[in-house]
């Protein structure tokens, strides 16, 4: 079992390196056409695909507009603010058929060309095998529940040894299965989505590496091994978000993501150290065993520090600002990293070490408060976003906050259930959004519309996804979200909560969850209506996405719909009538409100009904600006100060040595007057002095 789990982790890792090193060679080996024949892809919205002659000009204008509008409009020119939409897609544009560009041809032929596509094979085949292995592990654990651990070797460090080992239990097996499934779907989807991308091979390799790292986090039996996987995920997400690094905004978004998560990771690492040193071991099993013996202070400190990392990786307030900007990466990347896996890692860690968190009132309170702020704030922000992917990004933050809230009120099972369900339906939503963007050529909601008939598969899949997001029965989201709301309600009203959580916080969480459900329904309805109903707001070819893209989307719709029923076996995962009713009412309220506003003018954006608040929500409550003023500007000023000290202090000292030497030389040069009399004067004076010295001393 452990071996299978280890193999499942190892396969994508090897695939990553193989893909990086051997990708194009494998393609040539298999007889693929040389990639130079394809048009240059993607990133610069200036659509340089050979087919798009006159359209290219209009194209660049469109994309330039798209980049400009959400971003600038009066605020400071920090490029982190731009919605970085343009880089996601090379943009075929409407008009006469000849513009049906090389992109479609490439996407459609991606499936046919798969056997010859070296990097794709190296990425997808090991991923498929790993998925099968994860499935076997999950089934084995399901039938024979219990914790299995296995250690490869012990690394002696002098004080506390690090055990290189895995720990497989129900939680790990389930999450690992979800990760593998989503990763496989994403890999297959990417073959078509990135068909024209020159750097597809490194992209696929990074996705494999990322998957391996996430599996390491999930299966890890030792806190430091977990941290290794954690960090590798951070690095891979940096590379993947910045895949189209030709656009400056993308690399800045990648750096922003990396730095903010890194900030959290510092706290995370220190928390690991505190916990490990306190417990005398880094292995997760050992820590959980010795937890009752640890002093309260240690536990509180450790868990609060771990929360820093959780907040960073799982994009909770205040370290959430990277997630909307991370949408600059290709859509499959968003689906994998920012919906299903990396952001879920934080929640997963809290669930893994839940006993520690439950023992600390401060940790639970902080987690609860952060969750409340995140879920409501990001839901409101999602309501006003213009870019479909940003809506989904804020939605992710909000749903993760719901999971965090579930953890705070003492329902880790509910939170993990929602995690898995969310992984499925959010990945589904992102991939489907990618299809929509592929077809319409733009990610902005105001350019979509009326796609219901043109893209049926995508339409139905996305409907299921939105339904899961809102929590409508009978799809999975209903069960999972209700599990959390039910737990919150019970915690608040009936006091069934961890002893350390204050009642007030539980009530706050409960009310916030209900409010969030309403707002979630509102923005989901808005996106759904604007994308699929009404008249097309811009001109684009009306057709379904290529098959290699629609099949994974359809495949993900299945678990999104049916996962809920798997949870019926556990009592806490069954729907509770009162909380279910309350949340359905809230959802209905939100959805109906938006529908009414939309119905008045289907061509307009329902968010216009927000009035002046729309701007505030859209800018994420101006949090980016606040951070820029509080953090970025002082750090930059400090950097400039250091630079000035270096240039004027240290460099000047070095250069000044030269200058001063020259000046000293100049001073000495004055003795060389050329006047013999002065020379002689000096000479004789010296002789006299020496003579005196000799006489006096000898």
């Amino acid at each position, binding site marked *: 079992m452990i071996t299978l789990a280890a193999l499942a982790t190892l396969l994508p890792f090897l695939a990553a390196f193989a893909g990086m090193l051997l990708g194009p060679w494998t393609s040539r080996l298999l007889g693929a056409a040389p990639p130079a024949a394809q048009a240059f892809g993607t990133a610069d919205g200036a659509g340089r695909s050979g087919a798009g002659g006159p359209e290219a000009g209009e194209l660049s204008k469109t994309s330039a507009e798209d980049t400009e509008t959400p971003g600038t409009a009066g605020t400071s020119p920090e490029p982190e603010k731009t919605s970085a939409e343009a880089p996601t897609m090379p943009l075929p544009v409407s008009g006469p058929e000849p513009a049906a560009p090389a992109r479609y041809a490439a996407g459609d032929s991606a499936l046919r060309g798969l056997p010859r596509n070296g990097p794709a094979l190296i990425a997808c085949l090991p991923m498929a095998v790993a998925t099968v292995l994860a499935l076997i592990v999950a089934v084995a654990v399901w039938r024979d529940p219990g914790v299995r651990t296995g250690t490869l070797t012990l690394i002696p460090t002098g004080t506390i040894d690090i055990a290189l080992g895995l720990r497989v239990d129900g939680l790990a097996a389930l999450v690992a299965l979800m990760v593998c499934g989503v990763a496989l779907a994403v890999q297959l989807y990417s073959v078509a989505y990135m068909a024209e991308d020159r750097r597809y091979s490194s992209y696929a390799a990074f996705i494999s590496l990322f998957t391996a790292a996430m599996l390491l986090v999930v299966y890890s039996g030792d806190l430091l091994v977990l941290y290794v996987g954690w960090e590798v995920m951070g690095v891979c997400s940096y590379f993947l978000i910045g895949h189209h690094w030709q656009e400056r905004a993308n690399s800045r978004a990648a750096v922003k993501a990396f730095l903010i998560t890194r900030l959290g990771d510092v706290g995370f690492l220190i928390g690991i150290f505190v916990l490990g040193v306190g417990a005398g071991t880094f292995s997760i099993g050992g820590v959980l065993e010795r937890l009752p013996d640890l002093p309260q202070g240690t536990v509180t400190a450790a868990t609060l520090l771990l929360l820093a990392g959780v907040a960073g990786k799982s994009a909770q307030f205040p370290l959430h600002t990277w997630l909307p900007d991370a949408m600059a990466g290709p859509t499959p990347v968003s689906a994998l990293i920012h919906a299903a896996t990396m952001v879920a890692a934080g929640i997963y860690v809290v669930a893994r070490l839940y006993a520690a968190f439950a023992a600390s009132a401060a940790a639970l309170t902080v987690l609860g408060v952060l969750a409340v702020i995140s879920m409501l704030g990001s839901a409101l922000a999602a309501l006003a976003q213009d870019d479909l992917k940003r809506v989904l990004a804020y939605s992710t933050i909000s749903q993760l906050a719901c999971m965090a809230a579930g953890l705070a009120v003492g329902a880790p099972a509910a939170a993990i259930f929602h995690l898995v369900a969310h992984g499925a339906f959010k990945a589904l939503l992102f991939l489907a959004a990618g299809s929509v963007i592929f077809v319409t050529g733009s990610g902005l909601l105001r350019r979509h519309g009326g796609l219901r008939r043109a893209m049926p598969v995508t339409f139905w899949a996305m409907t299921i996804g939105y339904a899961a997001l809102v929590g409508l029965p009978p799809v999975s989201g209903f069960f999972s979200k209700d599990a959390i709301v039910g737990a919150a309600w019970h915690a608040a009203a009936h006091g069934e909560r961890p002893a350390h959580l204050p009642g007030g916080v539980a009530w706050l969480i409960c009310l916030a969850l209900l409010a969030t459900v309403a707002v979630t329904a509102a923005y989901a309805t808005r996106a759904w209506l604007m994308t699929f109903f009404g008249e097309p707001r811009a001109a684009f070819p009306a057709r379904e996405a290529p098959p290699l893209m629609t099949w994974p989307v359809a495949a993900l719709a299945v678990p999104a719909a049916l996962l809920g029923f798997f949870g019926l076996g556990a009592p806490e995962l069954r729907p509770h009538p009162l909380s279910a009713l309350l949340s359905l009412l809230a959802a209905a309220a939100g959805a109906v409100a938006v529908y009414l506003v939309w119905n008045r003018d289907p061509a307009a954006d329902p968010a216009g009904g927000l009035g002046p608040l729309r701007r505030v929500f859209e800018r994420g409550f101006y949090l980016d600006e606040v951070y820029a003023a509080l953090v970025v500007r002082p750090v930059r000023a400090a950097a400039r100060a250091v630079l000035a000290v270096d240039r004027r202090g240290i460099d000047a000292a070095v250069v000044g040595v030269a200058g001063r030497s020259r000046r000293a030389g100049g001073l000495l040069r004055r003795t060389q007057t050329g*006047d013999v*009399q*002065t020379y002689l*004067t000096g000479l*004789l*004076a010296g002789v*006299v002095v020496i*003579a*005196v010295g000799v*006489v006096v001393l000898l």
Partner: protein
Amino acid sequence: MTAAEVVFALLGVVAVGSAVLVVTTRQLVHAALWLVVAFGALAGCYLVLTAEFVAWTQVLIYVGAVVVLLLFGIMLTRAPIGRVPRSGADDPLDSGNRWAALAVALATAAVLVTVLVMGFKDAYIDLEAGGGGAEPLGGSLFRTWVLPFEVLSVLLLAALVGAIVLSRTDIGARDEEDDGEGDG
């Protein structure tokens, strides 16, 4: 104090005094003439010290030749005749180095006088007439010191030739800009 010492002291005062005047006077020609007085006083000193031959050689060569040469030099370099008033930084006679020079000179004097007096405070010269006459000196010169004497004549020849070469006006400066073939 013996008579010799008195005379010597007087002559010494004259010599030093006229030397001081040589280096401080504002008239060039007077400097040369005070130099004559100094040389003459020194010749007297030599006489007191019973070195007659040297005394007369001193008068002959120094007063007779050297001072004349100096006067020729003064004439040929169009030196200002008569009293030259002080004119600050570009004074033709005294450089700005005066005060440093004064300090150095005073220091030198102090050191030398002190050291020498301390060193020779018990030495007494026994003056016997005749030790410095032409005969003993000539004998010594042409027996013991004949080699340096001959070398000295070669030196004089060299000085003569050098002075002539230096003052030839028909040999110009070497031409710098053209190719350096070098001339004879």
